[in-house]
C-alpha cells in the first residue's frame, strides 16, 4: 500500500557552468510546491549526478546548464541512468537550450525542456502529471 508521499527531486548543475540562479529558484519553488528537493551544488559530473540520484532514490532529476555543453552532458546522464536500470526516473532540463536542440534532447531521454521565464508552478504541474508513480 503506497501512501501519499512527497515527490523527491534532484536539482543538478552538470558541467562547469556556475550560473545557478535558475537551479536555485526552481529548487526553492518546487519545495514551496510541496516537493522534497535535493540540490547537487555546482560542477557535477554526470557520474556524480547519477550516483546522487541512486542514493537518494529520487523521482525526478532537473538539470540546468547555460554553457552550451548540454548536448554532451545531458545524454550522458540519461544513458548512465539506463545502464543502472533507472530509466523510470524522469529527467527534465532548463537553462540556455536553443530551440533546435530540444528534439535531440528529447530523443535522448529528456522528458521536457523548460525555457527562460517558465513559471515554477508549470514545472511542478508537469512533474505531477507525468510522474511514474501514483500519488
Amino acid at each position: 500500500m503506497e501512501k501519499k508521499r512527497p515527490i523527491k527531486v534532484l536539482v543538478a548543475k552538470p558541467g562547469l557552468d556556475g550560473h545557478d540562479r535558475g537551479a536555485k529558484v526552481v529548487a526553492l519553488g518546487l519545495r514551496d510546491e510541496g516537493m522534497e528537493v535535493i540540490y547537487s551544488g555546482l560542477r557535477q559530473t554526470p557520474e556524480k549526478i547519477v550516483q546522487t540520484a541512486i542514493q537518494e532514490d529520487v523521482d525526478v532529476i532537473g538539470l540546468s546548464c547555460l554553457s552550451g555543453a548540454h548536448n554532451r552532458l545531458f545524454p550522458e546522464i540519461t544513458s548512465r541512468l539506463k545502464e543502472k536500470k533507472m530509466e523510470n526516473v524522469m529527467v527534465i532540463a532548463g537553462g540556455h537550450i536553443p530551440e533546435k536542440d530540444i528534439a535531440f534532447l528529447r530523443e535522448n531521454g529528456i522528458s521536457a525542456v523548460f525555457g527562460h521565464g517558465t513559471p515554477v508552478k508549470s514545472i511542478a504541474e508537469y512533474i505531477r502529471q507525468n510522474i511514474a508513480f501514483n500519488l
Partner: protein
Amino acid sequence: MSDSGKIKEKRKLWEEKVLDPALKRFRLDKSPSGFYTPADIEGFDFIRKVGFPGEYPFTAGIYPTLPYAVVGTKGSLPSAKGLVRAARYSGYGTPEDTRDYYKMMQSQGLRGGPNLAMDLPTQCGYDSDNPMVRGEVGKVGVSIDTLRDFEVIYESYTGSLDLDKIASNFTINAPSNMIIAFYAALAEKRGIPMDKLRATPQNDILKEFVARGTYIFPPRHSMRMFRDSAVFFARHMPNVNITSIGGYHIREAGATRNQDLAFSMAIGAAYLEEGVRAGLDIDSFAPKFTFNAFGGSMELFKEVALQRAARRMWARILKERFNARDPRSMLIRQPMGAHIGCSSTTLQRPLNNLTRGVIGGIASALSGSPPMAFPPYDEPLGLGWSLEASQLSEDAGRIIQYEARLTDVVDPLAGSYYIEHLTDQIEEEAWKELEKIENMGGAVAAIENGYMQRKVAMSAHERQKRIESGEELVVGVNCFTDESELEVLTGRLIPHPYDEAKREQAEEQQIASLTGLKRSRDNRLVADLLRELKLKAGKEEENLIPIFIECAKAYVSEQEMCDVLREVFGEYKEEAAF
C-alpha cells in the same frame, strides 16, 4: 515656519481636498502614483550631495564632461566601424578560431585590442585535456591552456596593433594572475617590457563565490592571489588595471538593487584593504580599480539613482575610510551605466527586448554613461547575438545620443526631488547592509559563511514568486498573453560570425595541440618550476606572479600551475546553498 513645514502642511491639505476625492471617483484605495516635493529631500545640500561633474562626491559624474557626447560638428559625421563594439567581447573555439575571427574583424575595420571571453575550463583552472571538462572546451569562450595559445591569438596583433599599442581585456578571475603571466611572457618574447602593457583582467574573485561560480581556491587564498596582483601591477605594470568589479553579475544572479550595491561595495572595500595591508599607499593602486557594471532592471528611475548612489558611496568609502587624497582613487570607472540586464529580457515575443533595451539605453544616458541599449534583443534565444540584433542595439544607442540628444547634459535628473530622494534612499540602505557585512568581518567572512550566497538565492526566489503571483508584471510572460495577442516572430537572422562547425571541432583540436606541446617542451624545466612554485606558494608573503611568468615562458599549462596551488591552498567547497 520652514519651507519644508509649509510644504508638508500644504501636502496634507492637498491630499484631503484634492487627492482623496479623486481616488474616490476612480474607486482606488490608494494612489498608484506618487508625487515628490522638496520636503522629501529635506536639508538637501547641492554641493555636499551632488557637486559638480568630475568633483567629489562625483554623484553627477566622474568626469567634468561627457567626452563621447559630441553631436553634429559641422563637416564631420560620426562613424563607428559597424559592429565593432559588439565584436569586442569575443573569443570561441580554439585559439586558431579566435585568431581567424579577429583577423576577419580587423579586415572590416576593428581596431584596438581584444576583449577575450574564455571557456569554462580556462576560467576554472582546467586544461582542455582534462576528462572532467569534456563538452566545455571552446564553448563560452576561447580555450587557453598555455602561452602557445596566446601566441596564436595575438598573431595578427603586430605593428601598429602590437601589445604596447593596444589594450586587452580578459574575463578571467580565479586564474587571473596566470593569464596575466601569459600576456607578460608573450610581451617579453616580443621584446616589449611589461610596464608598457595595457590590460584589464576582470580579477574580481569574490563575486564569483556569489555569482557565476568560477572559483577555484578558498576565499582567503583567493585574496592572496588578489593581493599579489594589486602589489605587482602597482609596481611593475602601471598600465594594467587591477580589477573590474562586477555588481552586475551579483544582480543577475538574483540580488536586489540594494544587495547589488552593498555587496559590490563590500567586495571593493575588501580588495582595497588587502592592498593597504600589503603596504601599498591607497592612492598608488585605487585609481587602477575599475567596475564592470552595476544594476540591471527595467525600473529606469531607480537604476539611474543607483548609478548616482554608487558613485557617491564609492567616493565616500575611499575618502572617509581609506583616507584617499587623489580624486582618481574615488572614481567608479565602468564601461556601462544603467541598463536593464540580461535577466529582464524574455523568450516570449523576443522583439520586445529591443524596446526593453532602448529603455536601458535611455537610462544609461540619463545616468551619465554612453547610451547602450544592452543586450541585443535575441539574448534569451541562446544562440549568440545575430548581426541584426547587434546592429539595432548599436543604432538604438546612436539614436538616443544623436537624434534624441539625451547626452547633451550631464546628470540631467539632478535636483529632481524624486531622483535625489531615491539616490539618498538607495545609498542609505546600502550603507546599512554594508555595515552588517562589516560586522560579520567583511566581504570575505560574509562569503565564507554563505551569507551573500543565501541572500542572493532568496532574493531570486522572492522575485520569481512575485512574477508568478502577478505582483510584478512582465509583458508577454505573465500578462497580455491571451489569444488576442499576436506572437511576433523575428525575421531573417544573420547568425553571429562564429563558425558553429569549428566550435564543435574545437575540443579535439585543442587537446591535440596541448598534447603535442606537452611532448615537445622541456619537461624537466617544467617539473623544476612547478616544484619552485609549490615552495613559494607555501610562503604566505611570497608574490607568485614572477614565478607564474617563468612558468608561462616554459609553457607550463594553466592547470599545472593551478594544481600545485590546489595542493597548497585547497579547493573551495560550496557553502550553504540556501
